[in-house]
């Protein structure tokens, strides 16, 4: 056992080591992307409103009059200290935006993953188990259609049906205003705060608000899960160790569940990791559709006010999130699948 945990630790360390160059490259990428525009961020954002002297003053404050390499060095340093700068347009620190608005995005993303898994795993397994049946075909078509439907259109349709016509669910925001005001802020994650304070009405209200966004965003990625699980199961069922299990007289139900299902679900974790990018992009659109003030909405707002510092800070944060999550996914994989550690 100790030998195994040792190999796991070694794996984790190696994986972290591999993530470092990735982070560096991403940072360079963001930095370069943010500076391909002519002129500099400050004049781009506030060119018309300030006198040249004020502008120069602002540029100096933000360090945009320094050489590029020095600017990059300071950018690196600020990222390492998790301080992503202060916005030009409204003077908020990017880290406080992340803390205050990140909860919405997190709640949205986690709920969407739950929906995607809750729907995708059983559907994928059934489609693969009863391959080429009518149900399989329907499931495959469903997967393709959900993939082809943009989240925002699906979101609008859901709003039309469940909010405007049926009036069952609220169409925007993460809770009623009164609820938002009455829940004491602890974690900046409204649902969690409501749970902690034991306000069950608030929890229910928040849940109702998030239901449509969760389903909408979940359906965006469910197709990928269905397809992946279906193909995995089909391949596993034809696999060598499944035949070997049959040859030992293992019950067919056990062969399917214990040998095929379990093994075909291992790559799901990996797929989930690959879907994070899609999920984050989808989250931006979902937030916009349902008027949720998460990080995606904030990013769009700052883009519209041409606030380069805010955009750079938020994009950097997104990049770090992607790297960290893909790392976490690999760790989980190593825990589940003993072969990965070697």
């Amino acid at each position, binding site marked *: 056992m100790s030998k195994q945990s040792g190999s796991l630790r070694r794996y984790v360390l190696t994986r972290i080591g591999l993530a470092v160059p990735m982070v560096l490259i991403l940072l360079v990428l963001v930095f370069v992307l943010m500076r391909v525009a002519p002129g500099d961020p400050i004049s781009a954002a506030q060119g018309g409103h300030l006198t040249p002297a004020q502008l120069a003053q602002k540029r100096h404050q933000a360090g945009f009059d320094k050489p590029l390499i020095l600017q990059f060095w300071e950018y690196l340093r600020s990222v390492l200290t998790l301080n992503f700068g202060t916005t030009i347009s409204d003077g908020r620190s990017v880290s406080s935006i992340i803390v205050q608005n990140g909860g919405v995005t997190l709640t949205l993303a986690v709920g969407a993953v739950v929906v995607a898994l809750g729907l995708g795993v059983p559907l994928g397994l059934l489609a693969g188990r009863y391959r080429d049946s009518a149900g399989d075909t329907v499931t495959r078509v469903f997967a393709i259609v959900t993939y082809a439907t943009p989240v925002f259109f699906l979101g609008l349709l859901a709003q039309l049906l469940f909010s405007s016509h049926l009036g069952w669910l609220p169409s925007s925001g993460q809770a009623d205003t009164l609820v938002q005001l009455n829940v004491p802020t602890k974690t900046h994650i409204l649902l969690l705060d409501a749970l902690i304070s034991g306000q069950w009405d608030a929890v229910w209200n928040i849940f109702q608000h998030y239901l449509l966004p969760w389903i909408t965003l979940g359906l965006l990625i469910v197709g990928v899960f269905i397809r992946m699980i279906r193909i995995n199961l089909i391949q596993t069922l034809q*696999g*060598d*160790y499944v*035949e*070997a*299990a*049959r*040859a*030992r*007289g*293992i*019950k*067919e139900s*056990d062969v399917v569940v*214990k*040998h095929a299902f*379990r*093994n075909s679900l*291992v790559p799901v974790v990996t797929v989930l990791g690959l879907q994070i990018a899609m999920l984050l992009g989808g989250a931006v659109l979902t937030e916009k559709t349902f008027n949720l003030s998460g990080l995606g909405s904030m990013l769009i707002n700052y883009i519209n006010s041409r606030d380069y510092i805010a955009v750079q800070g938020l994009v950097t944060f997104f990049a770090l999130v992607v790297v960290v999550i893909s790392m976490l996914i690999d760790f989980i994989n190593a825990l*589940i*699948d*003993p*072969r990965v550690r*070697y």
Partner: protein
Amino acid sequence: MSAHVTSPEPAPAGTADTSRPVLSVRDLRVWYGTPRGPVRAVDSVDFDVRPGETLGLVGESGCGKSTLGRGVLGLAPEGAAVDGEVNFRGTNLVSLSKKQLQELRGPELGLIFQEPMTRLNPLMRISEHFAETLKTHEPGLTKDQVRERALEALRGMGIPPSRYHNYPHEFSGGMRQRIMIALALVLRPAFVVADEPTTALDVLVEAQIIRILADLRRNFDTALVLITHNLGIVAEACDRVAVMYAGRIVEQGDAREVFARPQHPYTQELLRSTISLSTTGLHYIPGAPPDLVEPPTGCRFHPRCPKAMKVCAAVEPPDVLLNSGSTSACWHQAQNIAGAIPPEHATDGREPLALAEEISVADEA
């Protein structure tokens, strides 16, 4: 099917040097469906295996050996049609339900595979493989009993108890094959098919595995069908041998007898093709095994047979039980039996085929 096959008579008392067969196969056919038509992978095959006996099943790849081994155990792939009789201790396995077959596999019937590397579930510890197998067939076992039985089986294969909780990927190929064997034998099946168990392994491990299989039948009276294309293994490890060609058994008999005096031209050619220290030149059988969707008429070997006669291309040869105890499905043995050759071929049937072919057509590219 029972219309023409009477169940095998019990071995006549007194003469039998062995007891009743554990498994006797009669007219077994396993055909696969393909868009071009059915593939006659196993086409009317008969054989018996007695307790403690090893029957070697040899032939070129693609001749139906593996299909035969799986068909006997009810593991023919989806869509395959199986008929005939696989008589295992009085029950015909072909007529059993999937569920009944599943219950027999493990405690009564076992299968050892060719490639050990992929046959163990990578996410399950060795211990879990054993626990699952034992608990399925003997639900009453306690945890300790499971462990005891498993460790005993592993010890027999030279796997130390300290490795019991390891994962498959932590073992070498040879060790995995021994684990697979232990797993197949932990319930002491009376009949085991070993499908090229050593092909994927190196020569030293091969010898080890063969010795283990030999011990097995000595110690537990297990009846074994050893599928291989390695004639050396047959000579070393098998009591009897069945030579398969294009879905049929063309010759079978006592291993030493068949090797010393092969009767069927295919067996003769196969033996000539093996390499030994005394080999001076490489011999091979020209041509390739036939297409099993449309096998050749008459004897399936006739297009490649150096001794083919005219009758061979037209009429399927009967199985001839020779005085040596071997059986050979060849006109060279059958022609001497009065009335064997149908009257229409009685006059020119014995003429060599090669001559006739040259004269007729060269339609084959």
